[in-house]
């Protein structure tokens, strides 16, 4: 039972929740390299993810150069083109977005926002990062082995993924890719257990589930989903590795290749697709849910208004998470399936639009009559909402079987998923970095550079992907190395391709400005103080900035309210931190 304080004057000792035994590092190595502090691990995760993401960015440039100027860059042959596609997709989806949202933001924000000293299993948390780093290194090793990395497409569909016609199929490429995925999943599971159990067990006194910031709800739900969805990719990877290395036939049908009958026979490529998409669709929401959560907090803080419909937001996150496990086959309409299944999956897919729309309405209603500060985090948050609605609407097209079948292999799909899963989450990532950089480093990012970065990125992304919808409707197929002049690639479409490429180069260059800003502001940025955005959540209430080892000094905070007390009538300031109690004389009649 709880010790009920006997009189009003008794402060509630935060230590009543027994404090965690904190690991204290003794040397430089254990403080900065093999650190068990979630904040250091978060930065390690983020820097690794962003570095590998830059590689993927350069790969996208190379692809765009080939599409706009076929034949000009002779080192981009068809094999290389496919390798670039594959590595770009895989890196962006898994090694950048998943790792950055969960490993980066998850590690930094979960303990701080919940009022915990650290994650509950710090050692496993440290291992998680190092295994992730190993996975990245194995992935990158693909560029340096004979035959290069795999060029099977990020979906790695068999049988082509392990045949000699595909780059890396009979070389090291596919083996390294599958091994890297297996490592990533093992590493992620270690981290994921931490995120989930810390939310369950590490919360400060008074931090009920319904007082958690939506950021934590998003990361928490996404992690639960990831823990259950990644095993499907694990199973698929292990089985394909067996097919490739040990000659089994899980996925490989009987095939005659270059006149020789391969030893495989009877396997089912469709089985792989089921396993892959059973992971692949939840993966979309593993990335989207943390973005939803973070953007809710950004909007609330920078519009100085409580989030509209908090409960609905929480329920919508959970419902989206659950629904996302029963829609996977909408990625397989063109693989052929029983029409009844197609109908089922189209229906579940469209149902997801309901909770998602609730979230969008709530964001807009939060902005409604808010005191909107167009800070850079807010700009990116607004950019996210617009982009996400755009990408979501084309999703409604593609969710229907009859519309999907003709569009499935065109640039329309590329435009759709880049809007909804590429640009939209990246907007949130940037918004979040601009928002929390002052807490992480103690200094503000430069405002002017930030604005240039935002406008070039936001407008540029639209100029890249909007025309791509048009190309798709025209019939321009995706995944093609070279189109030549054809019905689907008339001179006008080709000019459009050149335009898209120029925009892609521009947007990429804007990211260099961002990197420069991040490095420059580290030393010369404006001093941020402890709570530059005047936000309520616990990470802004730490005794020092950046937060010390153990996060909260001597006593853990006690939480008295939810995370969205902005512009409360009668309050002295326009925000009340979560760890500030109501005055004792205040009547409690308003509470139900």
């Amino acid at each position, binding site marked *: 039972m709880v010790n009920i304080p006997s009189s009003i004057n008794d402060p509630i000792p935060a230590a009543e929740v027994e404090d965690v035994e904190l690991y204290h590092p003794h040397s430089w190595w254990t403080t900065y390299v093999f650190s068990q502090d979630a904040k250091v691990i978060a930065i390690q995760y983020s820097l690794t993810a962003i570095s590998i993401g830059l590689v993927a960015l350069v790969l996208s440039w190379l692809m765009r150069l080939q599409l706009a100027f076929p034949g000009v860059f002779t080192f981009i042959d068809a094999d290389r083109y496919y390798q670039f596609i594959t590595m770009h997709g895989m890196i962006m989806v898994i090694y950048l977005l998943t790792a950055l949202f969960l490993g980066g933001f998850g590690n930094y924000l979960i303990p701080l926002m919940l009022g915990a000293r650290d994650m509950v299993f710090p050692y496993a948390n440290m291992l998680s990062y190092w295994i992730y780093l190993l996975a990245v290194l194995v992935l990158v090793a693909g560029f340096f082995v004979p035959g290069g990395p795999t060029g099977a497409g990020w979906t790695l569909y068999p049988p082509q993924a392990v045949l000699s016609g595909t780059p890396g199929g009979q070389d090291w490429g596919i083996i390294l890719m599958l091994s890297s995925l297996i490592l990533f999943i093992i590493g992620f599971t270690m981290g994921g257990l931490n995120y989930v159990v810390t939310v369950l067990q590490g919360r400060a006194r008074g931090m009920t589930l319904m007082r958690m910031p939506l950021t934590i709800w998003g990361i928490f739900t996404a992690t639960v989903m990831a823990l259950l969805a990644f095993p499907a990719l694990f199973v698929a990877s292990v089985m394909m590795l067996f097919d490739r290395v040990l000659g089994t036939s899980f996925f490989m049908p009987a095939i005659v290749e270059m006149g020789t009958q391969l030893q495989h026979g009877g396997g089912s490529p469709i089985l792989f697709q089921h396993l892959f998409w059973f992971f692949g669709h939840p993966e979309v929401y593993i990335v989207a849910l943390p973005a939803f959560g973070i953007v809710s907090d950004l909007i609330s803080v920078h519009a100085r208004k409580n989030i509209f419909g908090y409960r609905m937001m929480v329920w919508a996150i959970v419902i989206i998470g659950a629904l996302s496990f029963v829609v996977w086959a909408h990625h397989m309409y063109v693989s052929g399936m029983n029409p009844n299944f197609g109908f089922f999956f189209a229906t579940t897919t469209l149902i997801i639009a309901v909770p998602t729309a609730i979230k969008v309405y709530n964001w807009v209603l939060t902005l409604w009559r808010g005191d909107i500060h167009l800070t850079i985090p807010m700009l990116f948050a607004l950019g996210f909402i617009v982009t996400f609605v755009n990408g979501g609407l084309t999703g409604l097209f593609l969710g229907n079987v009859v519309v999907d079948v003709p569009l499935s292999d065109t640039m329309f799909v590329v435009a759709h998923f880049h809007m909804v899963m590429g640009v939209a989450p990246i907007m949130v990532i940037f918004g979040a970095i601009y928002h929390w950089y002052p807490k992480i480093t103690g200094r503000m990012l430069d405002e002017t550079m930030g604005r240039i970065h935002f406008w070039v990125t936001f407008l540029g992304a639209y100029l890249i992907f909007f025309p791509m919808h048009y190309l798709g409707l025209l019939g321009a197929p995706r995944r093609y190395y070279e189109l030549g002049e054809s019905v689907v690639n008339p001179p006008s479409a080709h000019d459009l391709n050149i335009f898209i490429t120029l925009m892609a180069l521009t947007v990429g260059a804007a990211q260099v400005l961002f990197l420069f800003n991040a490095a420059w502001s580290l030393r010369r940025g404006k001093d941020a103080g402890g709570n530059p955005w005047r936000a309520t959540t616990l990470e802004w209430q730490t005794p020092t900035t950046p937060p010390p080892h153990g996060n909260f000094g001597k006593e853990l905070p006690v939480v*008295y309210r939810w995370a969205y007390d902005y512009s409360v009538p009668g309050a002295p300031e326009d925000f009340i931190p979560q760890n500030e109690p109501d005055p004792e004389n205040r009547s409690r009649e308003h509470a139900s």
Partner: protein
Amino acid sequence: MSAILIFLAGLASIIIWWMAQQRLTSKPWLESARASDIFPITRSSIPTVKIGLGVFLAVVGALFTLFISAYFMRMGLQDWWAIPLPGVLWVNTAALVVSSVALEMAKSSAQQNDAYAMKIALLASFVTAIGFLAGQLFAWRELVSEGYVLADNPANSFFYLITGMHGLHILGGLLVLSRTTFNVWQGEPPKEARLSIELCAMYWHFMLIVWLVIFALFAGWANDFVDICRQLLT
């Protein structure tokens, strides 16, 4: 994919049951508190490591269920020849059951503060678990010598793959169990060893259940069960 969907439905009902107790319908915007207010406890009294292990077992459960899902889907194709089960698997099953029971006994003797019984039971569990793994390797060798090699037939491939994966999980558990056993034989008192023994027992029971399911699968009983379910549904 129906196996994994059933598994997830079970998991979802646990999650819903848990969420039902979390006051998700409360209105947090009305519930700010004064410093003198009484605070509900926000965490479970179950030890954190136990919850961590529980979550981990859910992940392991999903992993094996996905293997089983793949097994069922692949089994429906034409080139499937069921693999004969070596008799030694029965001995292995018995060894794993004994190991699990011994851990349960170690747990209850730790609870009753009986250091001697706890030590013996732990050792018994450790030895039988190694026996299980050795038996599994023996079963593999027997199959190979009879010509049922990995790549010959998908049934063989699945047998080696899934038993191998299960064996790896047992091996991982053995590392922890060996540490616990070692500590206890070094004189760790039952009170301190209790939690880690409980965790080992939990993991062991779970891996035993996984083994029984995949054993039933390879023996073909699961197919009969699935057939009955299909007939009931149609």
